[in-house]
């Protein structure tokens, strides 16, 4: 999500997509392409907001970032969870309560707390290095 905000939708998508593949590989969970895609979308949506964000430590930018976290997590985890309808043959009830809600809530919790901290820290780097 942060990489999407900082570098745009393509980087956001690739960070989420490849990052999830790497995390699954390292933890030994296997290769779940539809969840990798969901994580990619979770990074892509904040990336779409990056054009509206100029100064990372401004209140307006942080609010936009937080909104993008919620939308990104909703779309990304929504797509990944809905794919279970097709893959596992689960019904909508299972998809919402067993797949979507746990993944969505965990992601927005981490995103809402850490994104503003990362944005403020990145603003300092941008200012210092003249990027």
């Amino acid at each position, binding site marked *: 999500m*942060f990489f999407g905000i*900082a570098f745009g939708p393509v980087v956001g998508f*690739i960070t989420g997509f*490849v*990052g999830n*593949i*790497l995390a*699954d*590989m*390292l*933890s*030994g*969970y*296997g*290769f*779940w392409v539809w969840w990798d895609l969901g994580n990619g979308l979770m990074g892509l949506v904040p990336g779409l907001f990056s054009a509206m964000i100029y100064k990372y430590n401004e209140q307006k930018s942080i609010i936009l970032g937080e909104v993008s976290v919620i939308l990104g997590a909703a779309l990304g985890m929504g797509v990944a969870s809905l794919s279970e309808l*097709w*893959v*596992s*043959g*689960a*019904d*909508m*009830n*299972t998809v919402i309560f*067993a797949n979507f809600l746990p993944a969505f809530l965990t992601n927005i*919790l*981490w995103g809402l*707390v*850490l994104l503003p*901290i*990362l944005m403020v*820290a*990145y603003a300092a*780097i941008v200012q210092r290095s003249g990027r």
Partner: protein
Amino acid sequence: MVSLDRPQLILMLVSWNYRYRNSPMDHIDPRARFIFSFAVLFSATTTWNPNILFAVFLIAITWYSLGRLTWKDTRLGWFMISIMLFTMIVVNTIITGGGAGGVVPERGQLIWPEGVLLFGRHVNVGLTVERLWFAVSQLMRILSISLVFIMIPYTMDSRAYGVTFSKLGLPDRLAYTMELSFRFIPTLARNFQVTLDAQRARGFELDAGKGNVIQKIRQVAPLLIPVTMNAIVSSEDIANAMDLRGFGQRKRTWLYELKFNWWDWAIIVFSIVMLATTVILAYRFDMRLFSVPRWWYGLFD
């Protein structure tokens, strides 16, 4: 160029789950493996027909056995899958019946028409023979997919991903991003360890476990922020170095070479035949929908 067939020592600071086992799987081209894995995925999700699902399940088991993986190797992955299976099958299909909605007919043959005696109380259990068979079908479908996908990190060399995706038709830039990400992991792990040590020297405790969930997440910030910022600065250095060397000007070559052997072609042909047969049976011969075999009813008479 270097062939991926030969076992080579990978010196890394993080532990990849892959190791060379000299198993049949180690000699199968990664492209053929991905094509087969996706053929199993699409075959298993095309139908609820028990015969087709059982055939795909047997094929997946055979495929998994080619990896010569031990339980110790893969237990973490199977633990995650068993949680998913428990939620989907035991809770949603067998206990509540929700998971079978839309596929299994509403009314069916009750397994315990008189109910069951539980702790001295008479309890009505609505579990039907059809719903129990649906749970078996769901188990075969999810296990077939899990068997082929869970083994990938354990049996595929991490150096092969970039070249594999490139040769499968992914744009070079995306394939190289994957390759670079894999190579960047040890550096990231080293940065993480250095930062953790530095913060600990300042009195930072990662396992403090104090406060609510939000406070616990915030506690990770002194570790996460320096590592992330360091990664951004390093990646910009790499991007500059690549620009200076003219990356992206023409099609790149890969250090590791992939070569198809006759058995790889056989696997690709088998994958295509398997998928085509499943689709034809499902749509041309109307074997797509859920059905319960006769012998299954006989078990509950």
